[in-house]
């Protein structure tokens, strides 16, 4: 079946530093990848999405590129802010799955002053 792997459970950084959160996936179908961010006691919010190979997608300073050759969709930001502290989920939708998402285990990003 489909699966998503996020290797970091917890990332702690100082404000202003760059960050990369890893996401790899497995599916036999055409993949559609998503990053969601969930702040404490809030709904998961869509951050980025892509189904296009080797095309960078950006939103709110975050960016990611879907690489089908390596089955990866890593999330990056060049300079993290205190407000970026949250739980980040990578998720996969395979086109034959009616939009159902398979989630990674999530990465907690904590940004310190």
């Amino acid at each position, binding site marked *: 079946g489909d699966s998503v792997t996020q290797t970091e459970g917890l990332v702690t950084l100082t404000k202003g530093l760059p960050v990369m959160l890893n996401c790899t996936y497995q599916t036999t179908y055409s993949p559609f990848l998503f990053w969601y961010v969930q702040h404490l*006691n809030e*709904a998961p919010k869509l951050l980025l999405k892509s189904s296009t190979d080797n095309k960078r997608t950006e939103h709110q300073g975050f960016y990611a590129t879907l690489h089908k050759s390596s089955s990866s969709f890593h999330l990056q930001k060049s300079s993290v802010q205190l407000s970026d502290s949250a739980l980040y989920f990578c998720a996969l939708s395979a086109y034959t799955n009616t*939009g159902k*998402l398979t989630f990674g285990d*999530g990465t907690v990003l904590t940004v310190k002053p």
Partner: protein
Amino acid sequence: NSKVIQTPRYLVKGQGQKAKMRCIPEKGHPVVFWYQQNKNNEFKFLINFQNQEVLQQIDMTEKRFSAECPSNSPCSLEIQSSEAGDSALYLCASSPRDTLYFGSGTRLTVL
């Protein structure tokens, strides 16, 4: 802000009691999903609907869980006989086609 409305925000039940939560999907979104997010932040798909019809559901949903999405009424998820292991955040999401938009969830605590 999320346009998917979930109520109640918090729900406390005793073991064996029924627990019911509701979801109003975003207008124009034909597909509705229910996910369970446990204390370890892991997501478990429960069921999804398209225009009131069930598309997919897991075995757990078929036993103690029931859900419906009637036309012109909120969608609902009900646990017939709550168990301690059901304590979790229940997230409803709606989708226009290929992207899910989540509500803030109902946090169920089963004592």
